[in-house]
């Protein structure tokens, strides 16, 4: 009989500890986790744009994008919305509790192609969670990139995630932050009001061939944001977007995240706009 300990099994989740958590906004929580095995925690690395599979025994497993940057190793960060059984159970967990993770999975952003270029990050709603990874990666390796523009829109001020962090970024001179809300319900919003595409009006002149854009947001947002990026004449293969799909394995076996003949979990979740022209189901 086969010796079980010799079998490599990519599906076995590894225990990780919740180091810290706090609420971002209602039903959206920020988690910092670390592998229980410290050696593993310190050697664990990933690319911005990758995701992990998170398990709670008995409730199942689902993909979550990584919100931290590999330039700050040792801790893995996620922003998670409470939407189902698994996340409900996760929201009941306290600091120091054990959850299970495996990964990282997916391709991540094509950082090598972004180096030396101006970076335009466009986030809508929850889409800011995976983009926070590339945002901080660029900031931590600031000399490797050109100018950095960070465009972020949410429905209303109460749904702006990472508000404190992102407003602190406005004090930096090496990043231009443009924030907007669809509707200002608070009366205290000091930034723009309107859909995220309106923020493009505030962008300075850019050299399109020396620019790279990354986009993430709700499915309806892509079309409009991409129109704006195309108006700026940014090449189609320099526009990257990260997509959400149902995933059960993360490693290209279960089939659910299929798009045409590709799998979001291994061929994505980052695709270029050029890809989407070939695989029509993408957006």
């Amino acid at each position, binding site marked *: 009989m086969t010796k079980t300990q010799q079998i490599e099994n990519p599906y076995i989740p590894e225990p990780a500890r919740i180091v810290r958590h706090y609420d971002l906004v209602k039903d959206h929580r920020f988690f910092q986790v670390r592998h229980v095995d410290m050696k593993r925690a310190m050697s664990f690395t990933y690319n911005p744009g990758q995701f992990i599979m998170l398990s709670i025994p008995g409730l199942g497993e689902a993909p979550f994008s990584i919100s931290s940057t590999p330039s700050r190793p040792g801790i893995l960060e996620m922003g998670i919305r409470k939407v189902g059984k698994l996340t409900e159970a996760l929201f009941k967990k306290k600091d120091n509790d054990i959850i299970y993770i495996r990964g990282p999975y997916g391709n991540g952003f094509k950082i090598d192609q972004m180096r030396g270029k101006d970076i335009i990050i466009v986030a809508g709603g929850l889409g800011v969670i995976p983009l926070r990874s590339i945002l901080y990666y660029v900031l931590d390796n600031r000399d490797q990139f050109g100018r950095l523009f960070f465009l972020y829109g949410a429905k209303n001020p109460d749904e702006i995630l990472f508000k404190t962090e992102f407003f602190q970024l406005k004090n930096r001179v090496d990043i231009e932050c443009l924030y907007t809300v669809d509707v200002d319900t608070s009366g205290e919003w000091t930034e723009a009001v309107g859909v995220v595409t309106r923020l493009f009006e505030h962008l300075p002149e850019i050299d399109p061939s020396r620019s790279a854009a990354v986009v993430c947001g709700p*499915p309806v947002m892509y079309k409009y944001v991409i129109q704006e990026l195309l108006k700026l004449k940014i090449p189609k293969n320099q526009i990257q977007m990260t997509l959400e799909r149902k995933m*059960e394995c993360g490693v290209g076996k279960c*089939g*659910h995240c299929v798009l045409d003949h590709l799998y979001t979990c291994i061929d994505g979740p980052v695709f270029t706009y050029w890809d989407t022209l070939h695989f029509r189901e993408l957006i």
Partner: protein
Amino acid sequence: MRILKMDSKYLKEFLESLRMFGKLYGPIWKRDVLTHDHVENVDDLVLDGEHTLIPVKKLFHPKRFNTMRFNEEGFTPNYSMFEKRVLIGAHPCDIHSLLRLDEVFLTDPADPYYKGLRENTAIIGFSCLPTENSLCRSTGTDIVESGFDLFFVDLEDIYLVWVGSSLGHDMILEKEEFFDENVTHADIQKYIQWREMRNDMFKKSFNFRDMPDIMELSYNSEIWDYFAEKCLSCGSCTMVCPTCNCYTLTDVFDVTNKTEGRRERVWDSCMFVDYSLVAGPHNFRGKRADRLKLWYTHKLKAFGGEYGRPACIGCGRCVDTCPVDINVLTIAEAFTSCEVPAK
């Protein structure tokens, strides 16, 4: 490749001798249904052209099983399904389907369950004659050149036996006296005649080669809506398709207050409504037409990887099975002729 000759009268004894290499599996009748199962008596084996209802994938990608157990300490994988096996009676299309599934399940990181079952199973292929709905000549999967340990071609009084692996060779050596190295001109003639006879027996065919382009061109065709209105979303096509690999996982707690239970894996189908449903909820394929389109994209256009091939291996099971006649034949015909089938 080594090709030997065996007198047909030795078949039963030879197959019986394979028990020393593992537990015998093959197509047998159970409750009027032909199924791949454990073979108690080699006389029960059905080695003519007939297809099992559920394809051979079930022996390597089990229909329903526990992948792991979990408790407070974490997850422990379950490998209890691994045993040495000899699969007898795999048809060329069956073997092609396994080679296609290998591309999914053995690509790094390999699926450990499929890999374990595959590595522990010897494949003894058998030639077959086409059934009513066989399409393997159209898909180029009517013959097979690799993917077996031994392959038997039935020429009535003799078998020509292709030796495909070192293990297959070991099997031959155990009963060396049954096999003859001397394949004569007459034997070759007989084989050629058999091939011609078999080629002439195919009743149905379709334009498989042009389907990738036709599918691409028909992406927005209203013909999809015609089929979507008919489709019962029963998922049978996917269950009986030898190259459908999708599965779903469910955690099941034991009836206890402790954190204990199992992670169960079951075949899934892209025809089911929750196939592309994410929490939120958002359904990326709520429409039946989108689900059908996905399946036929995989079967007739491209499947897996940047330069994937279509996955259809022409077994005809979807033609046998769909209660409302949606299958690779009717789809290919409709999109090639741009006409929907007459009611």
